[in-house]
């Protein structure tokens, strides 16, 4: 696979060069619409990493870590779970159900309970497509994307029906004060007071560690990877496909659901419409860019957090339309994900030549 390519070049140099190419092309596009690309970079970086912006960047990062891990673990079982959007949304219903049903005395208990609710609901939403795939062979891409729509309709129904607070607004009652989790500002005052980043960031990092252990240190993870590389070989080795599909998708759904702890419990403090805002789909890009490795997912999630937050600043400060950010994100995904060989092959040739010269 990596012909004579050192590991560092494989996992750092190539993504870095791809990223630079993406930014180069983005710069050309910015120039094309008559704005100064250097200025745009400055605005993006200061907007995303400054005292005010970093709290938002990390908030987005938290969500993207969860959805990125969700997609990554399914990838390892060669399941393309594009239902993160729906699973995260339904995870929000789980969070709201848990937090509204009990007046939690302290946030530490509340966050554990809410996480359990988020995971259970997210996993349950992934369970149906997973079962259909495992038992009936219904393609997971089709069913999960259908379940995004069903989930979104279900949430609308809940918010104008059974779960709606008195009044006309499609939202639930606010959660009780005891379930309000600390923001990063509460822990480290250097963060801006209004920034929504909260302690669920640490849950996300812990989840990344957990996924790493699961995939590379347990026999279950070994079976998931074996199944993902070759279903036939897995069956030969006595691994049951139904079990692997179900387990991988349930964990995947649970991770996507966990995103709601960040958005619903941490930020909105009640269930409202459209809490996911595309993070489920960004998770696909994050997992692709992070090569389905938890460390890569965390780094990629941070990068996409910067793009999200910095992009918002860009439209605010320079009048570059918000759609431009989507273009830049698309370029990043394109160069890092699908055009990887464009960079890889010249780099490999360069290393071969270099090695020959040395030998």
């Amino acid at each position, binding site marked *: 696979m990596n012909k004579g390519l050192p590991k560092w070049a494989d996992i750092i140099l190539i993504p870095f060069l791809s990223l630079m190419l993406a930014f180069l092309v983005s710069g050309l596009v910015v120039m094309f619409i008559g704005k100064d690309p250097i200025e745009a970079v400055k605005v993006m970086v200061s907007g995303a990493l400054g005292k005010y912006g970093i709290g938002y960047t990390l908030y987005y990062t938290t969500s993207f870590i969860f959805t990125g891990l969700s997609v990554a673990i399914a990838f390892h079982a060669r399941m393309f779970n594009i239902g993160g959007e729906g699973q995260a949304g339904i995870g929000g219903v789980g969070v709201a159900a848990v937090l509204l049903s009990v007046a939690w005395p302290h946030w530490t208990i509340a966050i554990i309970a809410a996480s359990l609710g988020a995971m259970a609901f997210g996993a349950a939403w992934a369970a149906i497509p997973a079962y259909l795939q495992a038992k009936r062979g219904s393609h997971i891409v089709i069913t999960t994307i259908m379940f995004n729509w069903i989930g979104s309709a279900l949430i609308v129904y809940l918010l104008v029906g059974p779960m709606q607070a008195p009044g006309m607004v499609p939202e639930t009652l606010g959660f009780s004060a005891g379930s309000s989790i600390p923001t990063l500002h509460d822990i480290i005052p250097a963060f801006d007071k209004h920034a929504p980043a909260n302690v669920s960031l640490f849950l996300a990092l812990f989840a990344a560690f957990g996924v790493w252990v699961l995939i590379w240190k347990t026999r279950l993870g070994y079976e998931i990877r074996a199944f993902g590389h070759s279903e036939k*070989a897995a069956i*030969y080795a*006595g*691994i049951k496909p139904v079990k692997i599909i179900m387990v991988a998708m349930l964990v995947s759904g649970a991770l996507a659901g966990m995103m709601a702890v960040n958005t619903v419990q941490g930020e909105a403090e009640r269930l409202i419409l459209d809490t996911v805002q595309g993070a489920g789909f960004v998770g696909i890009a994050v997992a692709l860019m992070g090569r389905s490795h938890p460390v890569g997912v965390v780094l990629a999630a941070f990068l996409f957090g910067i793009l999200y937050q910095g992009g918002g600043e860009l439209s605010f400060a320079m009048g570059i339309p918000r759609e431009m950010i989507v273009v830049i994100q698309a370029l990043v995904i394109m160069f890092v994900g699908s055009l990887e060989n464009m960079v890889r092959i010249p780099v490999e040739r360069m290393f071969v030549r270099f090695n020959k010269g040395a030998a």
Partner: protein
Amino acid sequence: MTVETQTQGRSETAAPVAPAIELIGVSKSFGPVQANKDIDMNVAKGAIHGIVGENGAGKSTLMSILYGFYKADAGEIKINGVTTEITDSHAAIAAGIGMVHQHFMLVEPFTVLENVIMGAEDGPLLRPSLNKARKVLMELAAEYELDVDPDAIVGDLSVGFQQRVEILKALYREADILILDEPTGVLTPAEADHLFRILENLKSQGKTIVLITHKLREIMAVTDTVSVMRRGKMTATVKTSETSASELADLMVGRHVLLEVDKSDAEPGETILEVKNLCVTDFQGVKKLKDVSLQLKAGEILGVAGVAGNGQSDLLNILGGIEAADSGEVIMKVDSIDLSKKASAAMRRERGIGHVPEDRHALGLVMAFQTWENAVFGYHNNPEFSGKFGLADQKVMMEDTKRKIEKYDIRPTNPHLLAQNYSGGNQQKIVIAREIENNPDVLLVGQPTRGVDIGAIEFIHKQIVALRDEGKAVLLVSVELEEILALSDRIVVMFDGVIQGERMPKETNEQELGMLMAGVDPEASA
């Protein structure tokens, strides 16, 4: 137009002429890998020239250069004495070169005629081309024993006939030089004999034939001259009449190898595995096994011969727990084995059935896994591999792997190398090591030496015999009759899902087994 090529061929066999193919200093490298190093080769016009060499010796690369799939880094190609630039397969066809690939390049739902004209249609309308092709095909059939029904659907034809379609395709394109890549891998001995007759006919009409194979017996039987390749180099070119199979084997490997398996007589013990009336139907509703019954005794190697696709794979897969059976019973020692869909390969391993699968790439190994991961594959839930907190004990797995690497001489010795980076022989050694070291009572072995170099074949055969000598039972499935005859203590032949006959290796020969493989019972007809 075929008439033209024939007269051309005839006139040129008489006088001394330029060789049909002349390669001068051809080199090709892929990145750091030098696949062909400074190759010189001469193939006389109207000769059958063999090219032998182990896997990875560079045979296929060389032929791909000749057929325009790859461009050589250096060197010169002369066709009939004229320097020719072969940039792609069109150029190769224009130069009169035709190729019959190991894996056929046919459109299965199309008819023979449609396949033959594909890419060589004369105009936008098909009818005139088809009519022309039908006429040409008739002539070719009469001339070379190449009879195929022009209107048959290719997918319905047997592999032997499909191969004829490939040859017809090349001849229709007026090929004077025909390259055949491992043509007999999928054929019965009778079909192979027929192919060789066709080749003789083609030769007598002045065609030049290049035959790539690893079967030395075939080289000895049909070629006029033979070139040996080793590690990208052409190590020798000799007249077939002046060499022997064992000399060629030594040239291929670079050291002396034993072609015969050195083994003592079997001392069969009690029946350890009894298969009764096994039946299975595939998803298309084709019956793959019809009432198959056999007994496997401790301390014997039972060889299952047959042309690929006659039920042997299903037998292995059912016994290995990969496939479920429709009906029948398998008794191991005293208890029967679960043949339903609920069974898994893990349950078979617990019962002491090891399985070296026919297809190590798809089944036996995970190509993207490291050696230590592959060396415990299927046995990863063994108690010795369970560590703290329910994690896998990777340290023990690693030590176990290093032991296997040493004992089975797996090279390179790096336990972190990915399976896809090993040669075929070393990949197979990983599988063999894993299955034998888990000490099975019954070992199922499918095509143990397919795509394996001669040096490793010798080693793998020794391991299988050693396991038998320990009193274990071995069920050996192979399409290589030589292998079956050399290793087995008892032979059954499968044809179309039934056991066509049973023979003792010392009391039979390839001809008799070949007839059984083709569904003919020589005793019944005699």
